[in-house]
C-alpha cells in the first residue's frame, strides 16, 4: 500500500512547508511525550512568528522553551507555563502573546478541531477571566461558556510505536495531549520510537488511526524528567 506509507527519511522533510506565522499544535504534557526532535527541527529552521498550541511550554533549555529562547514564538496557547522563566520575561515585555486556556478546555478544543465540532459549551471558566467576552448558554439552569475549536497548520506528536500507515500507539502517560493534537493539524507529523510493519499493531490498541497522520519519522529521544521522585525499597 504505497499510498499509505507515511514514513519520511529526515526531519527536514518531516517539517517541510512550515512557514512564518503558522499555527503549530504540539502534543505532550510537561516534558512527557513531547515531540523533542520535531521541536528541534523547528528551531533549526528558524521559522518565526509562530503560534504554538501546547499544554506547557517546555523548560528554558528543552522542548518548546527552545523556540521561545530563539524568539520564534509570537503567541502561546497553554494551560500552565510555570516551569519556564524565559516565558515570563517575553510576556512582560510584550514580545509574547499568551492565551491561558484551562487544561480540559484546551484538550477538548483540539479534539473538537479534529472532529469537525466548531464550538462547544463548557462550565469551565464561566465567571472567570477565561469566560470574558465569550457567549454564555444556560442548560438545566447552569451557566456555560462557548469555546471554539482549535486547528493548526501543523500538528506535531510523539508516539511509542507507529506502523508505516501512520497508526500510532502511545506509551503510558506519554499519551496525554498527543491523540487530540494528531487530529487537529492540517498536516500532522508524528515521530516515534519504533516503526513497525502494518499488521503488527492490534487494530483495537491503536490510539491514533493513520488517517490523521501525514508524515512519520523514527527518532531517538532524551525523555527528560522534570520531577524525579523515587521511593526507597
Amino acid at each position: 500500500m504505497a499510498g499509505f506509507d507515511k514514513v519520511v527519511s529526515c526531519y527536514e522533510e518531516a517539517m517541510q512547508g512550515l512557514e512564518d506565522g503558522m499555527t503549530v499544535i504540539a502534543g505532550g504534557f510537561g516534558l512527557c511525550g513531547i515531540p523533542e526532535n520535531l521541536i528541534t527541527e523547528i528551531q533549526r529552521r528558524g521559522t518565526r512568528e509562530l503560534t504554538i498550541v501546547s499544554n506547557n511550554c517546555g523548560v528554558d533549555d528543552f522542548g518548546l522553551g527552545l523556540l521561545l529562547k530563539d524568539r520564534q514564538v509570537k503567541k502561546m496557547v497553554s494551560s500552565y507555563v510555570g516551569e519556564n522563566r524565559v516565558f515570563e520575561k517575553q510576556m512582560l515585555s510584550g514580545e509574547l502573546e499568551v492565551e491561558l486556556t484551562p487544561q480540559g478546555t484546551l484538550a477538548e478544543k483540539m479534539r473538537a478541531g479534529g472532529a469537525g465540532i466548531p464550538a462547544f459549551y463548557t462550565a469551565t471558566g464561566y465567571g472567570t477571566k477565561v469566560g470574558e467576552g465569550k457567549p454564555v448558554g444556560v442548560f438545566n439552569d447552569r451557566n456555560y461558556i462557548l469555546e471554539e475549536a482549535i486547528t493548526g497548520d501543523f500538528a506535531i506528536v510523539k508516539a511509542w510505536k507507529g506502523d508505516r500507515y501512520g497508526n500510532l500507539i502511545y506509551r503510558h502517560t506519554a499519551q496525554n495531549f498527543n491523540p487530540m493534537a494528531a487530529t487537529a493539524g492540517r498536516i500532522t507529523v508524528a515521530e516515534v520510537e519504533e516503526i513497525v510493519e502494518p499488521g503488527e499493531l492490534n487494530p483495537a490498541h491503536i490510539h491514533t488511526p493513520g488517517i490523521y497522520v501525514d508524515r512519520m519519522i523514527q527518532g531517538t529521544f532524551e525523555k527528560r524528567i522534570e520531577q524525579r521522585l523515587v521511593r526507597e525499597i
Partner: protein
Amino acid sequence: MALTREQIAMRVARELQDGFYVNLGIGIPTLVANCVPKGMDVMLQSENGLLGIGPYPTEVQVDADMINAGKATVTAVKGASIVSSSDSFAMIRGGHIDLTVLGAFEVDVLGNIASYMIPGRMVKGMGGAMDLVAGADNIIVTMTHASKHGESKLLNRCTLPLTGVGCIKKVVSDLAYVEIADGKFWLKERAPGVSVDQIVSLTKGELVVPDVVPEMQF
C-alpha cells in the same frame, strides 16, 4: 494549635468513602493519599490521563513516560487505566470524580474560589484547576485560614481573579472546617485548642457560629 499540613490532610481524609475516585491537587491535597483509612480503598486520578495512581517508583521503576499531573515520576496501581487528556477531562468535566481536593488563595461566601493567579506575580496558568472546580460536585478546599500577615482568606468576595464561581462547599483550613451555603460560611469544627473567637477574628466573610463548635479529634 493550628493544624499541621498532615492534620489538614487527615481531616480531609475523613470525607473519603470506600470506592471513591479522587483527584488530589498539588501540595497539602497530595498528602491526603497517605491518610486513607485502613480497609478503605480509593482510586486516585491524575488529570494527565492516569486513573489509579500508585506510589512513587523505585529507582529501577523510574520511567519518563509515567508521570502525574505534578510532572513527578509515578507508578500505576493494579486495575489502573491510562487515557488521553480529553478522556481524562471528560471524567472530570462529566462529574465522575467523587471528590476533588485542591488548594486556594481565597474562597468566599458565594462558593467562589481564587487559586491560580496573583496579579503582578509570575504567570503560571490555571492548569486543570478551572476544569476541576467546574466539573466536581464534591470539592474540598485546603488552605491556611489567613495569610502570614493575618489577612483572612475566607472573604465575602474574592479579590483575586477567580478559578470558578459558586462551586466550593467545604473548606478545611488550619483552624477550622467550614461549609458554604446560602451565601454564608458555616463553622462546623475547630482545630484542637483553637478558640471560636480566633476563627471569627480571622474570617472576614460572614460566618455563622453555632452554639457548640466541636473540636476536631486526632
